[in-house]
């Protein structure tokens, strides 16, 4: 996706309203904090001190260490864990969305470009995948593949690609009949070149819109897998894993739910607000005429 695409997109969406601006600022702050987790986190996020478990925010130890947001059920600093957990969650979402958008878009474009039996096979596979509840498929695949960061990414990526395939397919069908594509074809350009240079930039908008919505969904998905005990491996924190263990302590250690919960909520909501607005702007039907 080249700079030209982004410029075109920026021109298409026009000025950013205040609410969306706020969401973007929040999102940027969270992403920066996650990127800087190594410098911002006051403690090692995996270092346990069993004698300091479930300390409230602001607790200072005899040795002078201060747990600004308290500690978790194993005496680990919550602030450090949430910072690192946000990074892991964002990374999982980013990588799995990238994986599914690449796989899904390629398959969709190929199906629409090639037609014939390729189209039939790919699009029926899409139907098939879409009619299996994604969370069940994910749980099953984790059981087969085993746990681990990359495997979670792969599982999420490979269960979600059909959404992009459908859009890429429909959009490519429309674009492929445009005169300049026919012209490029007649001029002898290869299929790969036409698809990547001429068609992809034209269909990128709707795909990006779906990707933003999916980004939030993937963060929640990883959280659900963590809740079922199959997410990112301990001791590495993700927002989902901190939350799913923290919710057992709602009555005694509210900070274990509030802090990661609010972080995750802010992250997903700001992405969703941005995506929702982007969708409205890019969907020609919803623009005011």
């Amino acid at each position: 996706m080249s700079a030209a695409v982004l410029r075109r997109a920026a021109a298409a969406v026009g000025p950013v309203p205040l609410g969306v601006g706020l969401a973007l600022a929040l999102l940027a702050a969270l992403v920066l904090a996650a990127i800087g987790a190594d410098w911002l986190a006051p403690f090692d996020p995996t270092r346990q001190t069993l004698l300091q478990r479930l300390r409230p925010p602001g607790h200072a130890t005899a040795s002078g260490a201060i747990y600004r947001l308290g500690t978790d059920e194993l005496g680990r600093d919550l602030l450090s864990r949430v910072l690192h957990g946000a990074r892991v969650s964002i990374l999982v979402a980013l990588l799995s969305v990238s994986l599914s958008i690449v796989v899904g878009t390629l398959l969709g474009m190929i199906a629409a470009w090639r037609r014939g039996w390729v189209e039939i096979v790919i699009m029926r596979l899409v139907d098939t995948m879409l009619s299996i509840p994604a969370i069940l498929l994910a749980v099953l695949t984790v059981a087969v593949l085993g746990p681990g960061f990359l495997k979670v990414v792969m599982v999420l990526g490979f269960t979600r690609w059909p959404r992009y395939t459908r859009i890429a397919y429909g959009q490519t069908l429309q674009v492929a009949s445009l005169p300049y594509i026919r012209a490029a074809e007649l001029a002898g350009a290869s299929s790969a070149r036409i698809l990547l240079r001429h068609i992809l930039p034209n269909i990128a908008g709707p795909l990006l819109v779906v990707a933003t919505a999916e980004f939030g969904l993937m963060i929640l998905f990883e959280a659900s897998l963590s809740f079922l005990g199959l997410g990112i491996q301990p001791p590495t924190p993700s927002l989902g894993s901190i939350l799913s263990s923290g919710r057992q302590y709602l009555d005694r250690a509210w900070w274990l739910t509030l802090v990661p919960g609010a972080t995750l909520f802010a992250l997903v909501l700001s992405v969703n607000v941005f995506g929702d607005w982007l969708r409205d702007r890019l969907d020609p039907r919803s623009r005011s005429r």
Partner: protein
Amino acid sequence: MPRYLAGRLLQALIATFGVMTIVFVVMRLSGDPTLLLVPEGASREHIDALRRELGFDRPIFIQYLSYLGDLLRLDLGDSVVQRVPAVDILAARIPYTVALASAALLVALGIGIPVGIAMAVWRGRWFERPLAALVLAGQSLPTFLSGILLIMLFAVTLRWLPSSGADGPAAIIMPAVALGALSMSTFARMARIAIVDELSKDYVRAARARGLSVGGTVARHVLRNAAIPVVTVAALEIGNLLAGSVIVETVFAWPGIGQLAIQSIQSRDFLVVQAVVLFVSVVYTVTSLAADLVYAWIDPRIRLSPA
């Protein structure tokens, strides 16, 4: 039309066949229930004997053929864990899932549609984005968290609602809210787009020109016409509701097929998992077909194409 229908049904059949194959293969690759069934300390001979008795020692291809054979006779097989027909286990859960999905749909529509209308009628005002954020908030929290928060607030602290289970109509409120919240924004968005579409049409402009109020116009004409796309989205949203119900039903101990699915996967109760997935995929296929048909029937301008 009949030709279109036949084509769609054939595609649905192929997709369902694909679903069954994928789930069958993935399940068999993930082991079998024998190890979970035997008590701790059972010897290898006992485990192998039980595996043989249950038929899991046969090559996967043979198991697959025998499963397809049973399927052709409309026999979904017996649960190896519970020793009763899988279809009975599934059937007992369906009413609960239908009830929860309907109630959740009601919640999603009841909040999503008014918000969508408000956003369309007052579009461009300062509160349009905050309204969008309000419905988006519903899908920005994991349900295992929103669920327990609801329980803590409305059951443990306020004592207004029962904390779990499916006895009595009050028990459905919290799971329906937790599940419905996931779909609110979808409906708000659809309603907004559809109504913006309608509001820009000539008859609305004409009505406005005659001096009719916006509210009256919306109520009289726009809503009816905008309902069509919303109805079709509602049908498609059922697939998402079924997927979302996995966690919601676990948290609220709601005995629907989502809970059944996850329990059966965890206990490797293959035939029950396959029955659940078959059911979900058929429901999904039928509702999307119905949505397309309804859409075409209401709006004849839409051409039915095989894709």
